[in-house]
Structures are given as C-alpha cells and as structure tokens.
C-alpha cells in the first residue's frame, strides 16, 4: 500500500478556468437576476406606503423627493435619512396580518380612537378571521399533518412494495401508479359527499385526509423507486445479522432514504401550502388558509397591492425556510461507499 502511494506522482498544477465554466457562471447570474428582480420588487413594494405604491415604481424607492405631495416628508429641509424613513412603512404587514380593510391604516385608525369594524386594537386582532395572521396558523395546521401523514404511510407501503414478497405486489403497485393520472377535480364531488356524510366538511381532518389520499400514490411511487435502488446485499446482510423487517426499515432503509424523504416532503409541503382548490372546497371561509385570504384581497380590493404584496411575502416565508433547511439533502449523496463502485 505504502509503495503504491509513494510511486504516485504528486501533481498540484493549478487549473485554469475553462471557458465553459465562465459560461456557466454567466448563465447562473442571469437566472439569479431573472428570479431575484421580481422578488426584490415584491419585498420593496410591500414596505412602501399605499400612496407611493400607486404612483411610483419600487425601483424609485430610494429617490426621496418623487411621488405625490401627500407622501412627501412634511419638512422639505429634512435630511435624506429622515425623508427615507417616511418612504417605508410596516403598515402593509400590520394591515394584512390583522385583516384591516379600511381606507387608512390599522395603526392610524386605532390611534385615532375609532376602532375599525370588528377590531379590538390589541393583540387579539392577529387572530381576526379576515387577517393573514389567522390564515398563517390555519395554513400550518393544514400543511404539517398533510405532509407528514402521506409520507409516513407511503414509507411503509414503499418498503413493502420494494422489499417484501407478497402476492399481487406488482399488480397493486401498477394500480397505484395508474391512480396518479386521476384529476383532482373528478374526486371533489364524491369526496365532498362522503365527508358530508361523515360530518367533517369544513374541518381540518377533511383536508388532511384529502391531501393524504392524493399525496399517497406519488409518494409511494417515488419512495419505492428510491428504496429499490438500495443494494440487495445490504438487506441480506442485515437479515443475516439478525434484523427483522421492522429493524431493517428503521435502521437501514430510513436513514438511507432520507434524501428522498426530504425532497418528497418539500414537494408535498409546497403543494399543500400553495393549494387553493382543496382548501376552498373543504374549508372555505370557515377556516381560511393563506391562499384563500390572498385571493380575497385581490377580489375585494382590486388594486390593493400594498396588502397583496405583504400577504404574498408572508406566505412565501415558511416555504423559503423549509427549502433552505432541507436543501442539503438534495445535494448530499448518501450512497457513496455503500457498495464498491
């Protein structure tokens, strides 16, 4: 071993940047700009007062002297920093979170002493059914079980399909894969009727069940494919080591399937989080989720961008956190070293 290592010439020549690498970098930068510009625009707009949003573009946000007189700093000789302070506000977020729908702002209305309709002017307004605050909580209540349940069930099913021998295994799997083509709209009426019979329409379990049912075929399909790529030897070795199916599943398959589970979790989470149709049909206005609330803002306020941008940003927050938290699983190749290759 040592002689082999010694005979290897040690070469540490610096690699020159290849042209293709520069091309890649330029491409990535272009895509980044394409993605980031609208996002930054959304973010900047969401912090601007209504009067400015309606008159000037977000890219002029740092030009403190434009826009209508009502939006100008009262003292024309104030410093740039002072002027800049009046050009940004968190009122949009406050209004969106509390669900304030008046002509001014929630803070101004409360400060003037006249309580806006249905508001208490205290922390309890965050749970106002018309606000994004409440919708955020509802969205979380909908999304977390709707992500965990189908994956949990699919994991067991996928293990069985991939590594347990039973009659009709391929037939059942084929049916499951086939089920993926059923359009969601087709099932709305029958499921709605069924849920009505069970008396769970308009409750969270209804949405959990629906999302679980709809998430399962794809989840099983994906996890089975991922599990069946694990080398057979690993399983046989574990059986010889004395493991039963549960122990193999728990100690070998689960850790090695983590990247697949993570990516599946992200997809399912995003799908449920961004879903409007299912929550509209099964929850409606009784327990509004964020997508439902955003759609309400558009329809009821037409050009109420200030609320829309803030609400949109609020609804983006959690998906972004989830993605950044789990993204390493996309990159990491856990299988390296399992089998000589």
């Amino acid at each position, binding site marked *: *071993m040592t002689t*082999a290592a010694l005979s290897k010439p040690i070469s540490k020549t610096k690699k020159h940047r290849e042209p293709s690498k520069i091309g890649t970098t330029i491409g990535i930068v272009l895509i980044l700009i394409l993605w980031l510009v609208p996002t930054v625009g959304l973010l900047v707009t969401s912090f601007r007062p209504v009067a400015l949003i309606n008159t000037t573009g977000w890219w002029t946000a740092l030009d403190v002297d434009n826009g209508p007189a009502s939006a100008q700093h009262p003292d024309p000789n104030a410093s740039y920093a002072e002027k800049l302070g009046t050009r940004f506000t968190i009122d949009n977020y406050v209004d969106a979170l509390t669900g304030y729908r008046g002509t001014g702002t929630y803070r101004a209305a409360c400060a003037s002493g006249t309580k806006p309709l249905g508001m208490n002017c205290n922390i309890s307004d965050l749970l106002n059914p018309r606000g994004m605050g409440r919708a955020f909580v509802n969205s979380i209540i909908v999304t977390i079980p709707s992500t965990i349940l189908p994956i949990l069930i699919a994991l067991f099913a996928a293990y069985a399909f991939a590594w347990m021998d039973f009659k009709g295994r391929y037939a059942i799997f084929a049916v499951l894969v086939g089920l993926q083509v059923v359009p969601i709209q087709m099932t709305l009426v029958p499921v709605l009727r069924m849920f009505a019979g069970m008396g769970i329409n308009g409750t969270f379990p209804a949405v959990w069940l629906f999302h679980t049912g709809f998430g399962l075929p794809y989840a099983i399909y994906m996890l089975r494919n991922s599990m069946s790529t694990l*080398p057979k*030897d*690993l399983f*046989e*070795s*574990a*059986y*010889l*080591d*004395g*493991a*039963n199916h549960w*122990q193999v599943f728990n*100690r*070998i398959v689960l*850790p*090695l399937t983590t990247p697949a589970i993570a990516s599946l979790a992200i997809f399912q989470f995003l799908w449920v989080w961004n879903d409007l149709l299912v929550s509209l049909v099964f929850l409606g206005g009784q327990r509004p989720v964020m997508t439902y609330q955003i759609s309400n803002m558009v329809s009821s306020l037409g050009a109420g961008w200030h609320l829309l941008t803030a609400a949109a940003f609020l609804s983006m927050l959690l998906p972004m956190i989830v993605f950044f938290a789990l993204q390493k699983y996309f990159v990491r190749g*856990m*299988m*390296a*070293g*399992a*089998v*000589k290759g």
Partner: protein
Amino acid sequence: MASVTYKNVWKKYGDVIAVQDLNLAIEDKEFLVLVGPSGCGKTTALRCLAGLEEITQGEVLIDDQVVNDVAPKDRDIAMVFQSYALYPHMSVYDNMAFGLKLRKLDKADIDRRVQESARTLGIEGLLKRKPKELSGGQRQRVAVGRAIVREPKVFLFDEPLSNLDAKLRVQTRAELSKLHQRLETTFIYVTHDQTEAMTMASRIAVMNKGLLQQLDTPQVLYDHPNNLFVAGFIGSPAMNFFNGKVIVEEGTMYIDLGSFRVKVPEHDMPRYDSVIDKEIIFGIRPEDIHNPEFAPPSIIAEPVEVNVDVTELMGNEIFLYLINGNHNFIARVDPRTQVSFGDKMTVVFNMDNYHIFDPSLDPENPPVVGGITKE
C-alpha cells in the same frame, strides 16, 4: 464450529436448474472452496445455506439440524458479500456492532468483541470512519470483521476478493488462511478463481452447470481430475487437450494424435484396454511438456516435433505456444530455453503425467479413463 451437509439439494428458478442434486459433506473446521465458472450454481448453493434462497428440494443441515425452515438469522452463520454490503450511514464500529446490538448483547460485551476483532484485522484505527472513507481493502477487512464479531458457527464468503487489485488479493488470501487457522471455524468460500481455490482450500468442490464435478483436496484435484471439465478448469495455463485415438501396434500402445503419436508407458497399458481403437481426448499439462535440454532426467520422455508460434517470458519460466499439424498447445519450459517465433524444435512430453478422457461415455464432459479417485 459446525459441520454442514447438503443432502440431494435442488434449486430451480422456474425451469432453470441452478443447483442439481448437490451432495456435499463439509466437516467441522474445514476450509471448503466452491469453485466454478459464473453461473455454475456455486453462489446459489451458498445462499441456500445462508437461508437467502429457499431450496426447491432436499435438505441442508448444520451440525445435525435440518435448517431448511430456519430463518437466516437463527442459523448462526455470517456471510461476507462480494460487494461487502457495509451499511453506508454507520461508522465501522456500528457496522460491526450492528448484529450484536440486534442480539441484545450488553454494551461492554459488544465493545470488547468489536475491539478484539478490530485488533485481529488491524482496523482499530478505522472504527470511527464511515465506509465511504475507506479504501477497497479496508472495506473488505471491515466486512470480514463484521462477520467475525458474531462468532458464528460457519463463515460464508461470496467472492470476497474479486473487488481487490491483484497485489492486495494475494496478500488478503494469505490473511484469510491465517484467520481460518486462528478461528478454527468452518469456512465456506465461493470463487470463480481457481488460484484462490488452490491456495486456500483444505478441500475444493468444483461445480459446473449446477452439478458438483469433483470434491477433493487441491492436490488430488490437480493430479487426478475426474473429468475433462475439472482438468481444464483447475490449473493455469489450462491443460492441453488433443483429440486422438488409442491404438496398439505390435504389443505397444500408442496415442495417435494425427500429426504425431506418443507411446503409452508399459505399466499404463492395462488401464487403457477399454478404449483401444476408440476416439479419446488426450490431456497433458503445460508444465509436463519440456525442453529436452532442461528436462528432469527421471521422466518418461516422448519427443514431439513442433513449430514455435509465440513465446511469453515470465521471468521464472517461458510459455511457448506450439503448433504441430492442427494441434495448438502451450508448454511451460525452463527460462534458459532460447527459441523464437517460427523456430522448429523438439519438445518432450512427460508420459508420467497425462490423462485420457473417454467422450463416448459423456460427450459433454468426458470422464477420465482409469482414474484413481472414485466417486
């Protein structure tokens, strides 16, 4: 420590017969090597013993217990896989301790066993690493380590060296032999490499097409192959075969090979009475064809005129690819031999050591005529 017995074991996959009526008695503490070309059923036979395949018919016994319906984990065997099958997400320590943890041994005992096995194999320094941080040779050791911590009755090896480079393979071969002596346990080892079989085995079972061809010690297998397949499979370069005929002229027996004939030594003549005037296959190993200049004096030498086609100098010997008529064959001669392409020369066949196979008894795999080993 245990004996293993295969009793009339069959394994079929649909219509395909993988193992055909295998009878094999493996003694306690034996190092048995199952060898054969790929697809000969050797790995299937091993997997049947491990319990990873159900047997179609027959019985497999460990000691005196029939284990057909015993779960793999209850057979008290450990297996080293060709791919090593290390758990990629566990450290070397956890890989080795996995089976012990599942068997609910206490922590101190597990630790003692793992450390001890690691020391035996010289991998103490690697215990904290993950498999992907190991070289091929180190992974192979860990795989062996994972088997020996369990202290099983029987060790199974499924081509454990095939992923190593040539040098490491030679080294590991010796280590496995040493390990076998130290552990004093039954080893069953599957390989397609006859060199591995010859160097490590206490007995070799040669398999082909699902059938056991011969079971014996390496030396007997080499000197007295039962049939054409074993004769050709064991030994490298392989034995030379010539189609010919046994004839008797004026009381002397010859093997007539068309373009030349060799005389059968007198004391061998009774053995070949049964094949006189019949088509036979004559076999002689490359090392039994000598350059007359350097041939040992005691052999019964039969001269043959040949043309040299190719010479391969190995340092300690020379392989000569020779032509006589339509016969091509290889000789393994003394390195002082000075010949080159196109030369004519005379070589001598050592008629102390040759084999005659009778295709009329089995055209697929002719058995040896008058062999000393009996079924």
